[in-house]
């Protein structure tokens, strides 16, 4: 009674949702606790390779760092009064989705397929039951299963965080929490299963053979399309576009970009799941595409706006890293350069012409950079994938193929389905959350800023 009444009305749904998830998780935990008692676990002996394990673990750590990196990249671009709200949203996702992944997310995404149609994983690995030191040969035969799981966890964490860019500076924090939890469970986990899960209907493990090395569809198109939905549903910020102050702290955005770039080596090269020549190739392709796109964006700013901008370079670099994500393990350095050029050109155009013309307020260009960049990357994978780089490629891309058109078609199909699915699913989700909790802060709260109104804090003291 008294407990519930201390929670102010609007937050009750959020609290309830959390309690619900925790309870569901609790059941699985209880079960797991029993079964993981002495004797019941698999033997600790494992055939994991130490070098591969070291690489996957450090890659997981690198990818984890990307979420704070994103926090600073985004945070530096908002107004002073909303700085903490962005950092908070990213950190909350880091906490919340990590737990969701342990409780049910991993099992839904990567667990043995339920129903055999490649739609969703089963509940066998709820609470990480049976996910231990023994490698899982399907996904990564030379590293502990738990290492593969935690590496994937970091992907599940950063993906919803990317969407923040679309609704920054105006979303209610409680609604944000509920939305993120639901989105991870109902949008991310299925899509990950379709593309990467054993038996998933789109991917290499028994599906159409759509190529997605490190998350072009699952991460970037997914987040990008959802970001567009979010920008549309939440509508514009007050004063957009002309009364919005410029980025309050570009150096922190540059720091965030640096952390993202650094972490991306884990993201892409780690997706080789071993310290192999493949990892090395993916590392090289990643770096080249990021560098090229940073350079090209600067050149476009230079040409069209008379000066190259810092924000342009870091945006370009991120766009390049986005676009090379699905392709990193499949392309040559040349392929990476060409991907990088497109990765700057298309998002630049989207941000410069598409956004103002369409009039949606994608505050930090989550759709422009991740959506458009991801789509270009997934398509480019169908252009430049090359079996001589990675034998997992069955059909070469268009430029190397005999049957390159086939692979390109598969890629287009994967792009279309992912984008459509996550756009629609996210739209529905947001409408539901809006109806139940209300997505947007009040006009007054928006004016005062989210830091004070949602978190009772200010980012920087003025006088101290």
């Amino acid at each position, binding site marked *: 009674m008294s407990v519930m009444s201390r929670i102010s009305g609007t937050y009750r749904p959020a609290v309830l949702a959390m309690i619900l998830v925790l309870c569901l998780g609790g059941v699985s935990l209880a079960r797991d606790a029993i079964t993981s008692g002495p004797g019941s676990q698999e033997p600790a002996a494992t055939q994991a390779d130490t070098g591969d394990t070291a690489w996957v673990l450090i890659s997981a750590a690198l990818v984890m760092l990307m979420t704070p990196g994103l926090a600073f990249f985004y945070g530096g671009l908002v107004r002073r*009064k909303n700085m903490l709200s962005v950092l908070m949203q990213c950190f909350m996702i880091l906490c919340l989705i990590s737990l969701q992944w342990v409780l049910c997310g991993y099992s839904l995404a990567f667990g043995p397929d339920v129903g055999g149609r490649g739609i969703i994983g089963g509940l066998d690995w709820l609470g990480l039951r049976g996910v231990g030191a023994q490698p899982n040969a399907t996904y990564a035969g030379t590293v502990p299963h738990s290492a593969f799981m935690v590496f994937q966890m970091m992907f599940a964490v950063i993906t919803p965080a990317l969407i923040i860019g679309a609704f920054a500076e105006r979303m209610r924090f409680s609604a944000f929490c509920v939305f993120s939890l639901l989105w991870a469970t109902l949008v991310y986990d299925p899509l990950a299963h379709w593309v990467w899960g054993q038996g998933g209907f789109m991917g290499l493990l028994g599906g159409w053979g759509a190529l997605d090395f490190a998350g072009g569809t699952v991460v970037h198109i997914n987040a990008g399309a959802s970001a567009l939905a979010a920008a549309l549903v939440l509508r514009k910020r007050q*004063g957009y576009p*002309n*009364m919005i102050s410029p980025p309050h702290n570009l150096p922190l955005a540059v720091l965030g970009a640096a952390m993202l770039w650094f972490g991306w080596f884990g993201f892409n090269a780690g997706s080789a799941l071993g310290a192999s020549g493949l990892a090395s190739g993916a590392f090289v392709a990643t770096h080249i595409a990021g560098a090229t796109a940073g350079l090209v964006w600067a050149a476009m700013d230079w040409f069209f706006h008379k000066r190259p901008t810092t924000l342009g370079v870091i945006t370009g670099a991120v766009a390049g890293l986005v676009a090379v994500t699905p392709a990193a393990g499949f392309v040559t350095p040349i392929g990476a350069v060409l991907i990088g050029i497109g990765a700057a050109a298309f998002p630049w155009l989207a941000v410069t012409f598409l956004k103002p013309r369409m009039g949606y307020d994608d505050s930090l260009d989550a759709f422009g950079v991740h959506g458009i960049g991801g789509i270009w990357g997934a398509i480019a994978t169908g252009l430049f994938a090359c079996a001589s780089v990675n034998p997992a490629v069955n059909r070469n891309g268009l430029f190397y193929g005999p049957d390159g058109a086939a692979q390109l078609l598969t890629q287009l199909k994967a792009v279309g389905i992912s984008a459509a699915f996550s756009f629609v699913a996210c739209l529905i989700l947001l409408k539901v959350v809006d109806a139940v909790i209300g997505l947007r802060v009040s006009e*007054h709260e928006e*004016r*005062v800023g989210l830091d*004070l*109104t949602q978190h*009772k*804090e*200010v980012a920087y003291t*003025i*006088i101290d």
Partner: protein
Amino acid sequence: MKYIIAIIQPDRLGDVLEELQKREIHLVTVSNVMGRGRQKGIAEVYRSHTEAGSLLRKVKLEIAVNAEFVQPTVEAITSRARTGRIGDGKIFVLDLDRCIRIRTGEEGNDAIG
């Protein structure tokens, strides 16, 4: 000549500047201040320690004008800075003795605009 000092809500600045521009009051100096007024701030919480939060962010405008521009300036500010909520701020008008343009050394009414 008068020296007008106005304290307004930070997010009204853009609108007020626009309005001043419209009324041909182009020259303004702006700065960050913190204000304690009737408006109750939001109590901040840091590791369960509550801060009264009595100082709130405000923006200060300083505008030197010839006498005939005082009324338009006051109107421009009040019309666009008003939200009707406590904390909207104040306008203070002081007497201005002299005004010198540094670039040219001009003085007085010519220098002000």
